[in-house]
């Protein structure tokens, strides 16, 4: 039986089995490339998405668990931000995405989906986080290229730029 889920404001139907982790539905069925497979164990955060505005690990979240909830992926962040801030128009980029470009944050960039998603969650709860608060919030996310300092700079820049 088809499962219906709402991703980036649109209702999608998938033939995936109910136990399929959301990650594979996003990547294989919806062809969204933002969320990445990293560990399948909820250890690294490469697969993060927002569900009802809070960061979750899509690699261990069965697709049936997000039925009736709002899933936002990296691709949908600008629209999510516009809704959150009640903006008249959707910006091309979420302030974090713009800050990531301005600060030239990524090296390989594979983990950066989870970093931006987690930071979006953080900034929606705490608009002006301190360095310590940023590091505490980001600590469960792994970056092997070790761009940690650039990520912290990106979040601070985005916090300043956000409306």
């Amino acid at each position: 039986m088809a499962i219906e889920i709402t991703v980036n404001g649109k209702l999608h139907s998938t033939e995936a089995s109910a136990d399929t982790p959301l990650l594979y539905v996003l990547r294989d069925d919806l062809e969204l490339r933002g969320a990445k497979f990293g560990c399948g164990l909820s250890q690294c955060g490469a697969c993060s998405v927002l569900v009802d505005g809070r960061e979750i690990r899509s690699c261990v979240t069965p697709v049936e668990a997000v039925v009736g909830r709002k899933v936002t992926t990296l691709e949908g962040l600008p629209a999510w931000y516009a809704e959150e801030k009640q903006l008249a128009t959707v910006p091309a980029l979420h302030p974090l995405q713009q800050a990531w470009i301005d600060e030239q944050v990524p090296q390989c960039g594979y983990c950066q989906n989870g970093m931006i998603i987690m930071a979006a969650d953080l900034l929606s709860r705490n608009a002006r986080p301190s360095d310590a608060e940023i590091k505490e919030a980001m600590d469960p996310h792994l970056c092997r290229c070790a761009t940690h300092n650039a990520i912290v700079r990106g979040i601070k820049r985005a916090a300043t730029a956000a409306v």
Partner: protein
Amino acid sequence: MGTPDLTPRKQQRFTRDAFLKGGGALIVAIGVPAGVWGIARGGSDAPETWPAELDASALDSWLAIQADGTVTAFTGKTDLGQGNQTALAQIVAEELDVPFARVRMVMGDTESCVDQGSTVGSLTIALAGPQLRQAAANGRRALLALAATELDVPADKLTVADGVVSPAGDASRRVSYGELVEGQLLGVAIPVKGKARGFGLALGGAKPKAASEYTIVGQSVPRVDIPAKVTGQHFYIQDVRVPDMLHGRVIRPPGLGSQLLSYGQPSYGARVVRLKNFLGVVAEREWDAIKAARELEVKWSDWAGLPTMEELYTYVRETPSLEDAVVASTGDAATALAGAARRFDAEYTTAVQTHGSIGPSCAVADVKDGSATVWSGTQGPNVVRSAVADALDIPVEHVRIITFEASGCYGRNGSDPATVDAALMSQLVGQPVRVQWMRHDEHGWDPKGPATVHQLRGGLDESGEIVGWDHEAWIPAFFETTIIGSVLAGRTARMPSLHLWEDPILYDIPASRQLAHYQGDIGSTENDGVGLISAWIRSPVQLQLTFASESFLDELAAATSTDPVELRLKGLTDPRMIAVLQAAARAAKWQTRPSPGPDANAASGVVRGRGVATSLRGGTYNAAVAEIEIDRESGQIRVDHVVVVQDNGMTINPRALKLGIEANIVQTVSRALYEEVSFDRSNVTSLDWNDYRIIRFTEAPTVDVIAIDQPDERATGSGEPSCNPIAPAIGNAVFDAVGVRLRSLPMTPDRVKAALEEAR
């Protein structure tokens, strides 16, 4: 949106001619950034063939100018996340006098890119940079020759601005590159010297610009790959999908030498794929393949040929070496050491480490009718092309490798073996197969940064001068890297590799020797040459060698109560190395005094220390000062701040360089403090991020990067060399703090506590 259009039946066979006539339309697969695209073959029954290698002496092998003036540059190099694509495009734009935004890079497609050697050893800007620069300079000359005819003005009286040629002083008459070429091949030969392919390739012909004329090289051009990476639009190898593709998962043996005895029926509609000990499953849906692989009942024989972790360094040291070589020497070290007034001996060891890519390796292969199109995240399209041909037992001309960027690898991770896995599975099932390694596959089976052992000997005369130095190292041979899928399938399984202890002793010591014992992989003597497969993580062997030598030098400094910076400055002779060290000391506000520092005798609590180290890697000079604190109770080391200085000659992109170095430093702190692969007698046992821990946000030090630009010096490696002084700088800082020497990497709390205990 959508995946790149890789449909074999939809797309014509790529030819350079068609590419040019089409004005580049062929490579504009939907949404695919410049530098990566996929075009598969047409539907003929005969094996598709591609040239064994592209002609490096043909200008058209390097550059294509479209009618709209867009320049496409082709390179056999790949981008591993440090910005090669941007830097190489800067070099090409500079030499051609076209705007940076008009240059696109096509990287790592064996059909259309010259073999410039694998993307390894921080050699891309150093060696491929000059090759592309020279190609572009020849391109500019060829275009000026066409313009001279068109405008009826001698070429030396022409100027170029933004890809438009005019007679000097007469901007009213003009012709653009696009108009000159009109979508044709340039048909110009470039003189080629040295080896016909790879690293040794040297192009002659036109003289490139002087560095003083540069307007694009040396600028902090924003990296072209970043916008797509922060919006989910970038195509990683993990994102490649082709029609009729099955999802494959490998099932590896529990022991390195285990034999497959039997297996049961797969569930979830999956099929078993098997050739000898090579085992996997394929399914139409990815989650079905994952579950089927996890749940398949498999019986393997036992194998237990690895040493225990406790025996590891004795094993490495005592296993007969494959080759011994004196890498560098001055005078007669043995005699000098025997006659020294004071003698010092110390053994240093470094643990097995994993590349630990955040994205496990992945590849897609379409093998049919005796030929293979393979999408890979490899660093070395041409070497993996041979490996795939060997694995499939088909000629190399029947294999095309199309490279897509993968998750960062920092050395040879699982990308190459995963590529062979996909090719084998596709050949066995007769359908395209995407193989995605799981986390346990990557942690368990990526070639590992190997364990090394170092015996250091030093001799001082009565006045405390260093009169003798001996560094004996047991390090991997790496003439070849083993491809595990091919081993298991019983096919040819070796890829050429390299071993790199090349840099001489930094200091002016009258009698010295560097002796290498090149070892096989751990456990390989027990399993037909296939052991715990290893391949270097950045920076090949130098990180381990520098940890040993720069820590031991600090021991000699302490023995003579000499300030560690002063001792180094006394022994250094190369002015660039001296300048780098002085810059590091200045930036760190280094206080001249011997180690250990004033708080080293404190009985308990947290103590601070600072340490310094230097390195020279392939012509790149580095010095680092680490500031640390260490908790005597818990044994925890915290690196607070690192000052790192680098002189890599000419810098192409200063901002990208600094950000790359900063990340490299934090990664190396992780390797110095935390990272160690665990294994038992059968295989690797640290199979996830809980068992193999890497640095986190709250542990990352601040980093002060100072890059010394030398625009008139050749560009040397920039990505990885700065990792080399980090571990010894930390170890030296620990000694400065508590007066105890750490001689083993990583410097875990257990090792710290043991060393403190021993010193008590």
